[in-house]
């Protein structure tokens, strides 16, 4: 009954991501859609504003590839490893000498804390003009970012801070499974994917597998994002590699460590992008190049959730 929204990654990105868009590829360390990031690079999008709590390697790669003019974020790093060097080169003074024709374009930054970013998506999803929170007191963050503003409570004389709504043009999330209509289920870390999806104008869901709608409807509490707000469903097993998918594969930590060395050297980084993104026509080629042996080492053991009974009421 429901229309299928299944599309290839090529078509989903071609149709739904436009130059100049604000794009959020969300997922907190887990379920990061590297597959979508690489396709955006491959299609040569420009002037994107990239929003994400933790830019991670995928944004380092996208920034290095020249698709972005601005970052909106709360923590900039290679989790558990170190810095994001391509991004740092677009920020730090040594690479940013004004008037130096060799200098890279400076990346525009809009910076919050984690809860600030989560609150921004929440305000976006709930159509609120602001969201209040108890962060930022006595810090330099409201100075660095004047969009973080004090707000007085209408009850008593308390003052807290507010952040403005974030409504991405496109939110892209990776998930364990969805129906062809886009009803999406996730387990493990939930991050702020739900809020980022509801806040967005367009939503692409990339999944390990498409399942029959009955699988989703058997456990309605597990649904994170309804097809109602989803524009395309892309089937891309291993699409979150080198990040991980709870229950499906582990983080490929070797790559996170390798990236530190690759990304410190602009030339080597560009070579990596050529070899692993531009010269490949999609995720299948990436996986083939990576090799099944490497992927096999990332499979976890089994830890089943068990089943509960919703009851049949007729």
């Amino acid at each position: 009954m429901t229309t299928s929204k299944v599309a290839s990654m090529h078509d989903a990105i071609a149709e739904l991501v436009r130059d100049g868009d604000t794009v959020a590829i969300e997922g907190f360390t887990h379920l990061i859609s590297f597959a979508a990031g690489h396709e955006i690079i491959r299609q040569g999008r420009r002037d994107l504003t990239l929003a994400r709590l933790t830019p991670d390697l995928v944004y380092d790669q996208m920034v290095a590839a020249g698709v972005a003019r601005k970052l909106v974020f709360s923590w900039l790093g290679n989790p558990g490893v170190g810095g994001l060097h391509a991004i740092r080169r677009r920020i730090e003074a040594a690479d940013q000498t004004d008037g130096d024709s060799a200098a890279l374009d400076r990346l525009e930054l809009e910076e919050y804390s984690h809860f600030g970013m989560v609150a921004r998506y929440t305000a976006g999803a709930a159509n609120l003009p602001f969201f209040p929170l108890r962060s930022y007191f006595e810090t330099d963050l409201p100075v660095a970012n004047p969009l973080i503003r004090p707000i007085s409570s209408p009850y008593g004389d308390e003052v807290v801070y507010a952040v403005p709504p974030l409504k991405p043009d496109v939110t892209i999330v990776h998930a364990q499974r969805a129906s062809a209509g886009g009803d999406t289920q996730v387990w493990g870390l939930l991050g702020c994917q739900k809020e980022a999806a509801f806040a967005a104008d367009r939503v692409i869901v990339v999944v390990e597998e498409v399942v029959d709608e009955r699988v989703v409807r058997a456990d309605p509490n597990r649904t994170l994002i309804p097809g109602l707000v989803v524009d395309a469903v892309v089937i891309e097993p291993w699409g979150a590699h080198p990040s991980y998918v709870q229950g499906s594969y582990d983080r490929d930590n070797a790559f996170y460590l390798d990236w530190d060395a690759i990304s410190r050297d602009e030339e080597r980084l560009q070579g990596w992008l050529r070899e692993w993104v531009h010269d490949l026509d999609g995720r299948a080629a990436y996986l083939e190049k990576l090799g099944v042996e490497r992927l096999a080492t990332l499979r976890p053991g089994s830890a089943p959730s068990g089943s509960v009974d919703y009851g049949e009421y007729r």
Partner: protein
Amino acid sequence: MTGAAFTPNEMMVVAAARELAGRRVCFVGVGLPNIAVNLAKRTVAPDLELVYEAGVFGARPARLPLSIGDPTIVTGATAAVSMFELFAFYLQGGLIDVGFLGAAQIDRFGNINTTVIGPYDNPTVRLPGSGGACEIAINAREVFVIMRQSARSFVEEIDFRTSPGNLGGAGAAATRRRQGWLGRGPTVVITDLGVYRFDTDGEMRLELLHPGATLEQVRASIGWEVRVADGVMATPAPTPEELRLLREELDPGGVYLR
């Protein structure tokens, strides 16, 4: 002197873990705090509830998490929730006893910088930024700081205040009260040389000196004239069991504590 039976980093993590004795709910930061808290859970604080900003309460990691969003923190946990819920209800709601933070720069009052070295708009070094640190510093009941010390990191003036500590010193408690913060700020700083607590006027003071470290090393690696407690004590050396856990279970590759 104990010879080279353990490294300064090992001593630092062990000292940090011991501080968690008697604490119930700990918000775990990335990096060294992650190891210290996981060691505490296996030693002085078996009932400690580990909270990860990724959205996990009551984690029971089967291995040392590679990052604060490792899948091993989810499997077997009490609850895996949205980040909204974690930050709004657990942290801002006042349920966290201890927030455990690292830092790039710290001043004598425990204010922390993890944002930039140099000017914000044209930094010499761009650091990760706040993540959850700014809200942990404000909302956790108390904050533990763990970091290696050096004249570059223990500075007279931090370049950017990412996470508030005791602000300008004596007036900090009043400011926190007036603004309705739940937390009382940093209570201990654990480094590779010793352990510091805070005087009533909000300034840190050396309380414990690690075996092998000297007061001269301490003074040489702090950018202000540091206070030293009368009768500063020696930190008890790591026990064989603490070292075994670190070396065999938590960091077998020596990635963090080499």
